[in-house]
């Protein structure tokens, strides 16, 4: 006998500590990023003090080799990092979804989509990213485009498997027999099936893109006209006495910690959201 208790909605679980910390970290970085113009104590690109001086009451994190305020640069860099991470991830999700649905459905685009996915899966991403950025010139939007272009293919394959499995389900068969159009089936049956994995992909790719921004920045490929955490790290490492003095602690440390906090926050929040969207035990 089924009791009403079994039918009622499960009691909401308490948020685990990891998810809470993750969400707090993300919120903190996001707040810093969105409130940038209000929070900035000074223009991050103006010379406001002596070059390479440690933290003082005026410059909380000291100044870099040009005499820019590092605290302002940190806040401004948070904005760039989140912008790159979330825009590249959003673009990448859209590409994955379009290609995956096209390759998993029965339309005419199937063969083309499969070939393009296979091609991009085999492309070595890191060398190509470097080559493209150097040729196109470093810039925020070209970076976002390149990161999206190099990250969509693996997930398109996962989406494709999910989509072609859904096409084989009985209820889809029934809907087709009732005369539902392909577009309608994709909208009402396919999209709800792939939405959770796309959300997970969004968080994973955002994390990857933020790390890639820093990595490419470290190699000197950050846009020098826009402050980012990668650019701060690059400029810090160009300073020859970084590890000889305590400059690493207030110059290279904060952007590195910012990147770790953001990426860990994304993982922790993502895991919790994923387990709620997909309650089946794995």
């Amino acid at each position: 006998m089924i009791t009403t208790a079994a039918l009622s909605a499960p009691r909401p679980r308490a948020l685990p500590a990891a998810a809470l910390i993750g969400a707090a970290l993300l919120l903190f970085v996001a707040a810093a990023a969105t409130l940038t113009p209000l929070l900035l104590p000074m223009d991050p690109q103006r010379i406001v003090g002596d070059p390479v001086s440690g933290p003082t009451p005026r410059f909380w994190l000291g100044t870099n080799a040009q005499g820019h305020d590092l605290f302002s640069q940190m806040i401004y860099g948070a904005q760039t990092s989140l912008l790159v991470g979330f825009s590249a991830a959003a673009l990448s999700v859209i590409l994955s979804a379009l290609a995956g649905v096209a390759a998993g459905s029965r339309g005419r685009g199937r063969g083309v989509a499969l070939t393009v996915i296979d091609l991009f899966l085999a492309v070595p991403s890191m060398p190509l990213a470097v080559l493209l950025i150097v040729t196109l010139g470093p810039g925020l939007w070209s970076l976002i485009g390149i990161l999206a272009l190099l990250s969509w293919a693996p997930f398109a394959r996962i989406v494709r498997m999910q989509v072609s499995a859904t096409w084989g389900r009985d209820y889809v068969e029934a809907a087709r027999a009732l005369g539902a159009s392909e577009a309608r089936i994709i909208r009402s049956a396919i999209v709800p099936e792939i939405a959770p994995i796309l959300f997970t992909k969004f968080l994973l790719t955002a994390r990857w893109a933020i790390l890639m921004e820093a990595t490419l920045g470290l190699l000197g490929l950050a846009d020098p006209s826009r402050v980012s955490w990668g650019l701060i790290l690059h400029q810090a490492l160009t300073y020859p006495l970084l590890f000889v003095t305590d400059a690493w602690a207030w110059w290279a440390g904060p952007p590195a910690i910012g990147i770790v906090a953001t990426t860990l926050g994304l993982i922790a929040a993502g895991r919790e959201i994923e387990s709620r969207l997909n309650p089946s035990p794995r």
Partner: protein
Amino acid sequence: MTHRLLRYAGVAVLVVGLNFLLPRWLPGSPVAGGDQTAALPAAARQALTETYHLRDPLWRQFTRYLADLAHGDLGWSMTSHRAVRLMLAERLPWTLGLVGGAVLVAAVFGAAVGWRAATHPRQNGTRVLTSAVFGIGALPEFLLGMLLIVGLASKLRVFPPGGGQTLFIDDAGVLQRLIDLAWHAVLPGLTLVLIIAPAFALLVRNAIAPVLGAPFLTAARARGLPARRLAWHVWRNALPPVVTLLGLRLGAAVAGAAVVERLFAYPGMGWLLFEAVSTRDYPLLQGIVLVSSLAVLTMNFALDAIGAWLDPRTAPS
């Protein structure tokens, strides 16, 4: 198999074609004198155009480019005025030693951690070990490298903070040079091992854990098989994914570990890439990209071929 071969050949053509076309798509011309107010004299321009066959149709330039590639000619570096091929040959041993060695060590270490995590999941020692390995592995490699430099090189001065060898070490004996090389490789190598090992640990644990309670193992134990034979039956399941990951990592190793080499000023391919980027040395950059891309492609293709043999279930039907 032929289908896969075609796919990889297609990507190789794409990479080579991009390498050829990208500089030609860029605005400007190699004989136009750039920003300098004094433009090149007409005679010099004429000579340059003829030397580099710039007036030829694009397909003719492309076939010439392919012919040069086939002879191993990767062009001429713009900043150091040396053949790109020689510069790559100089750096490759450093990178293969450091990154290749680190990948192998990380595979063995990661596999050991994964084995222990699967066989003794409830021991406290295992829990400490796995959370340390996965926790450290979750850090970005530049942060880990920086921490190691600060702690072990800058504060304690146990290891050198960077470089591949001590200056003027060439005069010393062979043994002393080997020790010096190893000493310099410890910190960058350790960074790479700690970053790479968790993936191997995870793979081995996930491949082994479901097999441990499998009926075939109980049957084998009941037949009285020695422990070593039993262990091999378990390991057999982890082999295909581990070999695949190992291959992917080794293929990528040719490109070097750009971040770690930059941090430790290690004279490998990654550092060369950084130098090429900062001086905008296009021929050098293209040589690095081409060689490392082809290495990745070759390795992926070899893995596809080996994979079917290691695990017949994945063979294309």
